[in-house]
């Protein structure tokens, strides 16, 4: 996650959070799952029972057992260890991508929303053009053009997510550009940049946090999809998309655990972020609660 604080009202923020969580067990579940994922990402490699790259030809393609919870793959690697260790890589890719699009989108959107004019028009045209591509296909094209590396997966994911942030910030900044508090800040001698950064932009943060959370799930799906078709992460690095791709070859002969467990884990991560996004929206904007 980015290090922006949780978007809570200033005074009774903590009490409100507790109230919402007690009221909505689903959001509590989302926060618990999120903590679990962070735990896997940070401590995963040091707590898993086997080395994720350790092959063992004598124990290839074994179904799940007490010894190997998620079974073993075609060259005897422990699927459970690989799935857990992969959490760090998958989360880092999506967090890096979302952070990048957050920053770039915020800067562009804030500039366009505050100064307007031709800058605004140009930015809108550019965003429209990006959105005119089917986004996953554009990501494929970008990775193909820039080269097949993990960094480029991050850049591609950041580029296709950027328009959402830029548009959100632009709208939020634009409606506050001439608000009373912004004019007051300007009159008391603050520069345009300072008013924009310290007075107007913070107002856009709550909806942005919701967007970040919903977006993280999508970014994970996107990165896993790209590695599923053979872009970015290379075997034998453990990564969910690539593990599902490798496991797919064995599913028609009945070795389901190779593809199913990484797939389920991927689903769990995406599900967590989607729930978290809905929960954050409830906290930030109680009127939109569905």
């Amino acid at each position, binding site marked *: 996650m980015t290090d922006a604080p949780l978007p809570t009202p200033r005074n009774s923020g903590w009490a409100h959070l507790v109230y919402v969580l007690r009221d909505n067990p689903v959001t509590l579940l989302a926060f618990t799952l999120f903590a679990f994922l962070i735990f896997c990402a940070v401590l995963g490699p040091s707590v898993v029972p086997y080395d994720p790259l350790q092959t063992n030809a004598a124990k290839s393609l074994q179904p799940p057992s007490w010894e190997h919870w998620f079974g073993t793959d075609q060259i005897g690697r422990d699927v459970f260890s690989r799935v857990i260790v992969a959490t760090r890589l998958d989360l880092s890719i999506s967090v890096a991508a979302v952070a990048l699009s957050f920053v770039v989108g915020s800067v562009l959107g804030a500039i366009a929303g505050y100064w307007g004019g031709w800058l605004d028009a140009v930015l809108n045209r550019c965003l*429209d053009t990006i959105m005119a591509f089917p986004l996953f296909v554009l990501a494929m*094209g970008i990775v193909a053009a820039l080269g097949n590396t993990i960094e480029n997966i991050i850049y591609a994911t950041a580029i296709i997510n950027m328009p959402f942030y830029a548009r959100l910030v632009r709208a939020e900044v634009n409606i506050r550009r001439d608000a009373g508090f912004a004019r007051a800040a300007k009159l008391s001698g603050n520069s345009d940049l300072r008013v924009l950064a310290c007075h107007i932009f913070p107002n856009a943060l709550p909806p942005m946090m919701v967007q970040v959370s919903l977006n993280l799930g999508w970014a994970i799906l996107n990165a896993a999809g790209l590695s599923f078709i053979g872009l970015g992460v290379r075997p034998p690095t453990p990564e969910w998309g690539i593990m599902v791709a490798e496991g797919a070859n064995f599913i*028609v002969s009945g070795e389901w655990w190779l593809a199913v467990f990484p797939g389920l884990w991927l689903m769990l991560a995406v599900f967590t972020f989607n729930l978290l996004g809905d929960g954050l929206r409830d906290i930030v904007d109680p009127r939109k609660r569905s």
Partner: protein
Amino acid sequence: MPAPSPRLRAVLLRCAQAIPVVIGVVVISFLLTRALPGDPAVYFAGIMADDASIEETRVAMGLDKPLPQQFAIYVGDLLRGDLGMSLTSGRPVATDLANRLPASLELTLTALLLACAIAIPMGVMAATRSGTWVDHLCRVVVTAGVSLPTFFTGILLIFVFYYLLGIAPAPLGRLDFIYIEPDHVTGFYLIDAALMGDWETWRGAAKQLILPAGTLALFTLAPVARMTRAAMLTALSSDFIRTARAAGLSGRKVLYAYAFRNALLPVVTTLGMVFSFALGANVLVEKVFAWPGIGSYAVEALVVSDYAAVQGFVLAMALLFVLLNLVIDLLYTAIDPRIGFDAR
């Protein structure tokens, strides 16, 4: 009246708006072909190329000229339908894409029809019976639908229906080898086989299609259902519905002629976003089911660094998406009850 009807004007205006978008798409796709690190000619000539063939590629692509002139050459090539040569198949990329496009379109359109056929009634039911099991089912499907990676759903469906139950055919393309391909009329096997009256082949093709289309439909179902539900709820709680009810219209007429027709508008607008997801997910589904469409063509090309093929695919997909969005918006003007209202 001398002025064109408001509906026609809206249609023309919308078509004009597509032009700058197409220009933008062409510019980005040009930039993508030139953004390759190092010398693009080396990439486009392929891994096996020697100095002479690299030089040949450079001259053929105009890479020795300044950038604006390169762009002019690129646009000129595009206008003539020339997307370069594919290194793997040895044929022009445009021909390859044209050959494979019907397979992708058949898959995507079937999936979208399937998704709309399930999601729209589901959304309407969830909105009219809000709080019942239909509503809860709708919510579960929507949340699960957006969390499921398409490629994983596809693999799960293969496992259950092919391996465990044995009722689906092997996930290996559009038609089992025991059937003869129908004559090429539209390229859509279902339509071609029906035109020939060959129902045996039609069933074979439908059997192959149902799992990939179902996978894609599951993925696109969620946003459509969610939007239908929300739009129906908004429409049902608005004043004109209350007026219609107060005027004594039947429940059915209020629901379908008034609420549903208005609720369709935001749903049609979301379809644009849904298409974007569907075309992207299409690539993954085609890979899982070995579907011989343009998505799997691009994936194969990516693996062997066949750049002309990949960029041609990206451009083709983008143009297809722009076209689909245009069709959606035109549909929007056709069903929007407010357009042309003043003229009447």
